[in-house]
């Protein structure tokens, strides 16, 4: 019951802050360099932060499941929920980035180190979610996905070096040169901070909802199994009688 109340409050807080971000973001004045597109700063960096946060939560929950001292189904559910919400936010990060990149850089996509890493991150998350979908047995699925989740994370530093060297060896283009953060004024920063609060609350709310659904699915499976065993047993008794 208490969980439901917290859920409800989280949802309301997320909705209110999201609406505030929307209203304030749309009222920001267009900038000289980026015109109307500068307003994307109210949502794009906060979405990116949540995308990394979701990846991190998935990794830590996977690790906690793998450690015998902290092994619990809760961590498995949390990792599953975080990965799915992470897919949504990582996709949104790439989409809002492309919408901003097209008028600013003239292209939807550049092979920048950070963009490439984000795309790989989305692929890793999609693989993780797909792996969970096809596994049948709950225990086996928890083990397999915890190992997959963690082994996706240990490769991130190697990925980081590879794409950074790749881009710096070829050409010096980087987000830093055209990033909007270099000449921001207070109004923009304030709206972006509201955006950070809004996206983090939205993440927490989605995570908690998804976690609950996962728990319900598991209990449904348990109940289903118990019912099936009970039915078979009754059939056996009736056959004897």
């Amino acid at each position, binding site marked *: 019951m208490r969980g439901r109340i917290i859920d409800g409050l989280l949802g309301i807080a997320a909705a209110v802050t999201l609406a505030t971000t929307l209203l304030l973001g749309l009222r920001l004045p267009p900038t000289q360099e980026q015109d109307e597109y500068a307003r994307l700063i109210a949502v794009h960096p906060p979405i990116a932060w949540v995308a990394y946060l979701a990846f991190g939560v998935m990794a830590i929950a996977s690790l906690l499941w793998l450690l015998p001292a902290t092994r619990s189904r809760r961590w498995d559910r949390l990792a599953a929920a975080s990965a799915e919400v992470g897919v949504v936010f990582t996709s949104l990060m790439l989409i809002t980035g492309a919408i901003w990149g097209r008028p600013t850089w003239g292209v939807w996509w550049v092979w920048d180190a950070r963009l490439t890493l984000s795309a*790989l991150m989305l*692929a*890793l998350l*999609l*693989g993780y979610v*797909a*792996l969970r979908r*096809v*596994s*049948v047995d709950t*225990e*086996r699925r928890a*083990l*397999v996905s915890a*190992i*997959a989740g963690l*082994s*996706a994370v*240990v*490769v991130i530093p*190697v*990925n980081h*070096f*590879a*794409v950074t*060297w*790749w881009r710096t*060896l070829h050409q010096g283009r980087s987000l830093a040169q055209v990033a909007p953060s270099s000449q921001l004024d207070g109004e923009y920063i304030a709206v972006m901070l509201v955006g950070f609060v809004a996206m983090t609350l939205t993440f927490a709310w989605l995570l908690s909802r998804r976690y609950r659904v996962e728990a319900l699915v598991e209990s449904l499976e348990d109940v289903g199994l118990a019912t099936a065993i009970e039915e078979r047993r009754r059939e056996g008794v009736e056959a004897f009688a």
Partner: protein
Amino acid sequence: MLLLGDDALLLLRDAALIAGKDLRVELRSRVTINQVAPFAVLVLVLFAFALEPDRGLLTRAAAGLFWLAVTFSALLAIQRSFAIESADGARDGLRLSGLDPAGIFLGKAAAVAVELLALEGLLGVGVVVLYDADLQGATLLLATCLAATAGLAAAGTVYGVLAAGVRVRETLLPLLLLPIVAPVVLAATRASEAALGQAATDGWPWVRLLGVFAVIYVAVGALAFGPLLEDA
């Protein structure tokens, strides 16, 4: 050998047993030779269709195309490596054999690595003949092949056993493995470009990165293979 303890020697013996078994199966069934090798060469030919038979373009892209062909072939070799365990209850036999799971992992990865090295030799000839590539830095190229192959085989074996229990593993394995081995394709391509004289950069930092990748996945595999095999 004196530096290694008894445990390490046993581990290597187990690995050699498994690698020997897998390679014997491949030699007798000839699936790698009759199917995977022609597939790899076919990929090289198809790349030429995609990129115009303009020799300059193919030569410049030779390193990347070579490693893409190796990566696609690696997917097949790994599927195969776990397909032979799924028939005739072979996995139960493996589990009951009393061999060290880390040894089984090393053995299976080593067998895949040997198959991939043989394929790379064949594809290397293909790249020289079909794409007019010029093999200049032989030492660098050899080191790249060894480090990249170790990484591909180790990561592939980890994900092979991860996907082994599920029904749709044929489509799942590429989705899981390709983003993981993306840095291998990238690093091996850059190092090979340096070795083929296509880029004026130093290839050795890339080889070291490939080495780090291989060490990470050998460690992951050695730790994770036991529980994964036990529960499958």
